[in-house]
């Protein structure tokens, strides 16, 4: 009988691989291994421990924390008992957490450490139905006396004892699991309002993982670094659905801050990240190059030129000539290998980007270096992936072709519709329905798009975001924003223009890179706000805006922009937890700034309240400059 659920897959893998390494976690500066057998033991004991504490198949277990083996044990433990898991982003603010925990009807919360326990204690009186809070890092929690607090190994011990009293129970429960059982509730980022809880079944996730792995088959000896929030569907897909089916090894970084460093140590074969990570990597390379010697810069520029040529030839699906091949191997030897080694991309077979659109410049950059970066298109409601690039058939303006088992069509209004085994069952809640997200079994993506002549899907933007420029053409603000974000000094950009006579932008500078640039150029600054308002910084960003404009059609060129005094932040609800801009919210909140952008004035005085993570607020008052570019 084929395995239908995650726990059944885990039992199967443990039987197959036994003492081979399933997971590695860096702890005490050393990579510590967990075998498939141990993995199963932990999940088994934790599951029985929860059952001992009263977990039933109707319940939900919430998990909040960094990526650790315990995270996985907790989710699989819940699922083995027929219950479901829900991952919550650990930087979620209190009211968001309350909303999710209450609406998902959570009975047990598994958290990482004191920080999360404190957060839970703070909201405890508003939570109903939660019975136990289980933590896995005991630091600082020794003197906490709340009776509902439990240490992870304590629960495992309970499970061990329960196992001895009820032999065979675990096997029986696992065997009882069905593919149509809900595996997880996944919070959808929802660019407006409260998050929605999508019900994703085992079958959804497993079919999607199988389809992806039929395109890009990872092998059991391959490595994967799990460093993006487990609450994100992409990580559920790789670390659960794919890993449990293919048996490749998962690696957990020591701390979130060491993730990129650990990535280099592991040099994985596959990597799936949202655009932000790829953009960061490009920025890091560019900043390092700027910092290096004159000779190195020259060699780098030469190699990149060859790299871009090679990438463009391959994009056109032509065979590169002998001369180019020789030059490219030289560049590879001198530059690309070293850079890829530094970024941990040396052994990459497949690198994916998904979750939002990635700018074509970033795409070309990685392909120039020989990193096989591919676009994935999908959404939480479709368990992650519906469309992706195939090897050797990559067009960076598209998201590729549908994965096996997925049908895609375009509705009359131009919206992308999806149908597959991986499409979710509906939203969890009082009605348990999908609302208007499902129409006759077709999932409405909310994205506008079309197919090109090669059958590649092109995603324009969110249906509601697509703007009509003053000359009547339809245009994607995201496309312009990504152009801007290619600059290492621009972290975030929000473009306006649909209802206005020209296009303008609110820009967030990248504190780290711009700060470094300022230091190198002897520009003194104090805070983010101060740095953002420096004349030289405006000059710097202006150059990059002009570069971006050069590639844009006349009507889509940015005429005026300003550097915002604060970073857009998920805590202020300006970004989603996966760092997508909530355009409408930003437009509303910075209404006065937008009006100023379309006025005659060259500056604007603003006063805003910012909220810190601990709930405190502060007012900042500052004068923002508005930069005008010459219309051509």
């Amino acid at each position, binding site marked *: 009988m084929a395995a239908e659920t995650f726990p059944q897959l885990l039992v199967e893998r443990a039987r197959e691989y036994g003492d081979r390494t399933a997971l590695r976690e860096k702890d005490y500066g050393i990579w510590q291994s967990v075998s498939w057998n141990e993995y199963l033991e932990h999940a088994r004991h934790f599951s029985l421990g929860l059952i001992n504490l009263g977990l039933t198949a109707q319940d939900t277990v919430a998990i909040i924390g960094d990526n650790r083996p315990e995270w996985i044990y907790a989710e699989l433990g819940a699922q083995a008992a027929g219950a479901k898991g829900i991952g919550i982003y650990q930087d979620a603010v209190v009211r968001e957490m309350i909303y999710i925990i209450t609406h998902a009807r959570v009975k047990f919360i598994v958290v990482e450490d004191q920080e999360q326990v404190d957060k839970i204690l703070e909201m405890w009186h508003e939570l109903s139905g939660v019975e136990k809070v289980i933590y896995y*890092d005991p630091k600082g929690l020794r003197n906490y006396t709340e009776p509902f607090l439990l240490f992870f190994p304590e629960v495992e011990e309970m499970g061990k004892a329960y196992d001895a009293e009820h032999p065979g129970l675990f096997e029986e429960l696992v065997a009882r699991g069905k593919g149509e059982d809900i595996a997880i509730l996944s919070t959808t980022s929802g660019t407006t309002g409260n998050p929605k809880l999508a019900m994703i079944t085992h079958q959804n996730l497993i079919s999607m993982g199988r389809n992806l792995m039929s395109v890009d088959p990872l092998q059991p000896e391959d490595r994967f670094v799990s460093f993006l929030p487990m609450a994100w569907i992409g990580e559920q897909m790789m670390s659960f659905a794919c890993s449990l089916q293919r048996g490749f090894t998962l690696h957990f970084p020591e701390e979130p801050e060491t993730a990129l460093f650990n990535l280099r140590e592991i040099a994985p074969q596959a990597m799936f990240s949202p655009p932000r990570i790829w953009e960061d990597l490009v920025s890091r390379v560019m900043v390092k190059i700027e910092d290096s010697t004159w000779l190195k810069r020259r060699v780098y520029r030469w190699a990149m030129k060859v790299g871009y040529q090679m990438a463009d030839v391959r994009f056109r699906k032509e065979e590169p000539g002998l001369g180019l091949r020789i030059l490219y191997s030289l560049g590879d030897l001198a530059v690309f290998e070293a850079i890829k080694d530094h970024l941990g991309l040396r052994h990459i077979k497949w690198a994916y980007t998904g979750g939002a659109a990635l700018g074509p410049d970033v795409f070309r950059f990685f392909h120039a270096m020989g990193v096989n970066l591919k676009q994935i298109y999908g959404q939480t409601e479709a368990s992650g992936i519906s469309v992706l690039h195939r090897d050797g058939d990559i067009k960076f303006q598209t998201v590729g072709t549908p994965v096996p088992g997925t049908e895609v069509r375009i509705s009359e209004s131009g919206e992308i519709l999806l149908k597959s085994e991986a499409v979710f069952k509906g939203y969890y809640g009082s009605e348990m329905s999908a609302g208007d997200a499902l129409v006759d079994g077709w999932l409405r993506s909310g994205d506008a798009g079309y197919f090109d002549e090669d059958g590649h899907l092109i995603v324009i933007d969110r249906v509601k975001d697509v703007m009509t420029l003053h000359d009547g053409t339809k245009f994607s603000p995201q496309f312009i924003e990504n152009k801007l974000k290619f600059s290492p000094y621009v972290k975030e950009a929000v473009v306006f223009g649909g209802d206005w006579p020209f296009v303008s932008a609110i820009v967030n500078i990248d504190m780290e890179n711009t700060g470094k640039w300022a230091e190198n150029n002897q520009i003194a600054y104090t805070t983010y706000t101060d740095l953002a308002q420096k004349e030289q910084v405006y000059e710097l960003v202006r150059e990059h805006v002009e570069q971006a404009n050069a590639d844009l059609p006349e009507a889509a060129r940015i005429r005026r922009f300003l550097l915002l005094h604060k970073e857009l932040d998920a805590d202020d609800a300006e970004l989603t937890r996966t760092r997508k801009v909530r355009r409408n919210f930003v437009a509303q909140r910075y209404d006065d700034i937008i009006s100023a952008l379309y006025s005659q004035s060259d500056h604007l005085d603003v006063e805003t309240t910012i909220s810190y993570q601990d709930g405190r607020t502060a007012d900042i008052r500052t004068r923002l400059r508005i930069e005008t570019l010459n219309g051509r």
Partner: protein
Amino acid sequence: MPRGFSHVLNSSTLAPGELQMKVEDVQLSFGGVMALAGVSLEVYQSEIMAIIGPNGAGKTSLLNCMSGLYYPQQGRILFYNEGKEHVLTNLRPHRIARLGVARSFQNIELFKHMTVLDNLMLGRHVHLKSGIFSGGLYWGAAQREEVRHRRFVEDVIDLLEIESIRKQAVGTLSYGLQKRVELGRALALQPSILVLDEPMAGMNSEEKEDMARFVLDINEEHGVTVIIIEHDMGVVMDISDHVAVLDFGRKIAYGTPDEVQQDAAVIQAYLGTSVERG
């Protein structure tokens, strides 16, 4: 799940609440300046004791007497561990360190060109036993010893959350992080009492909060006694069990944070009083 500590960072054998250090009528003067004019104080196992007072009150001088940098002209400082009484005021600084009195300084005293890890490993020096030859060859017992100490240092790194800077040179780190490393160096000694001289000076409020949390973790998780000089009254009142107030070399008040805040002499020393004119 091996996430518990394999070593306790505390080397004191006393039970919480037992008398650990006794300062008896300590007097210290530099020429005509009386830095300490007969200070007496008791420190108990596993408490956090704060020493506060205006500039020049003699706080650092008192800590220097405890760690053997100054020798008081009069009075003694007694220290209890492993069932023995030690007179600190007769001992050289390295002997005192060996007894488990670990000290961090107001100014950062680290090897700036060495990595965080090496600085912490150096903090273990009092516990290293292998000689020049076996250590130099890094063989047998010397290697095992190194591994054992590295394991201990990793506990300190984990406690202070400095994994990401383990291999960085100390000189390249921000001030706040350097202070944290310095605390780590003192902890690597496996102290029975930790003496901190203004660990939060010059920090922003976020860094202070972090540091206060680390001090609490060290105290609560490992039971290490902490003597701390600090100017931020908010922090002092939040974390300490007892507060001693010095003014012009005298102890003018002692008690729980609440008691000290109510004390008339303290209010006078901090706020001054109007002088009656007659």
